[in-house]
């Protein structure tokens, strides 16, 4: 009986950190009716010092337009390996993009900031359209964008 309890405690102790290391997070981006083609959006994370950590999502599949997501492009040199498996379609004006990702817990309350760059064909590029600190308290609070994004929010 004792050995069974010990085994159970051990497996729980080993399993729990694995479960607690990541959680599903929903990122919702709603665009304004800016009256243009579909917007390309780059969602990426920087650390407290402003260094690029990695990308979370790319809305828009043609690499030839990525140079217009200027901050993201500068940070990554347009390396599409950064966004393999996390790329979807561009987002039309007035529409809402909802992405649910399994994100590491270490991203939250650790000084990381989520950035969104936006670009629309034949319209002005909008780097750093949104910059929102990743905190558990900030979850669910909408943040306004500068040009094409009406608001952005993340929920855990």
């Amino acid at each position, binding site marked *: 009986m004792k050995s069974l309890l010990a085994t159970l405690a051990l497996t729980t102790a080993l399993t729990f950190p694995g479960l607690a290391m990541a959680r599903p997070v929903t990122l919702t981006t709603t665009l304004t009716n800016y009256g243009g083609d579909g917007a390309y959006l780059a969602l990426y994370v920087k650390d407290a010092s402003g260094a690029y950590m990695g990308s979370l999502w790319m809305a828009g599949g043609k690499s030839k337009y990525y140079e217009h997501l200027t901050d993201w492009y500068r940070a990554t040199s347009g390396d*599409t390996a950064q966004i393999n498996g996390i790329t979807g379609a561009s987002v039309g004006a007035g529409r809402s993009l909802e992405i649910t990702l399994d994100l590491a817990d270490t991203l939250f309350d650790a000084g990381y900031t989520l950035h969104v760059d936006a670009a629309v064909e034949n319209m002005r590029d909008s780097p750093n359209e949104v910059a929102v600190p990743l905190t558990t308290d900030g979850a669910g609070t909408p943040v306004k964008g500068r040009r094409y994004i009406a608001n952005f929010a993340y929920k855990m």
Partner: protein
Amino acid sequence: MKTTLAVLIASTALTAAIALPAWSAIQDRAETRPITAILEAGPDAQPVILASNDDDDDDNDNRRRSERNNDDDDDDDDDEDDDDNRGARAPNPAPAGTVAPPANGLFGNGAPPKVQMN
């Protein structure tokens, strides 16, 4: 009478001497062919050289047209090439769901990304 007869024979002989070679030469050069046969045989077979040839004009038009079309095609191709290859552009990324997200430390090992557009 004898004189008249001699003159007549001499003139006939002269005429025959001059006319026979000329007549045979005409027979050699001008083969009598129907006009449709000449036209069907094409420009090379025509007994006269036309100052203007419709076929040549057509050729030129076709060449000009095809050159113009080729130029257009080339231009279009160039444009596309420019778009796609300028600065050794990176390939398009793999869409979500086709490969795992990058191992950048931001993602857990759980569910794959879900996306919804409203």
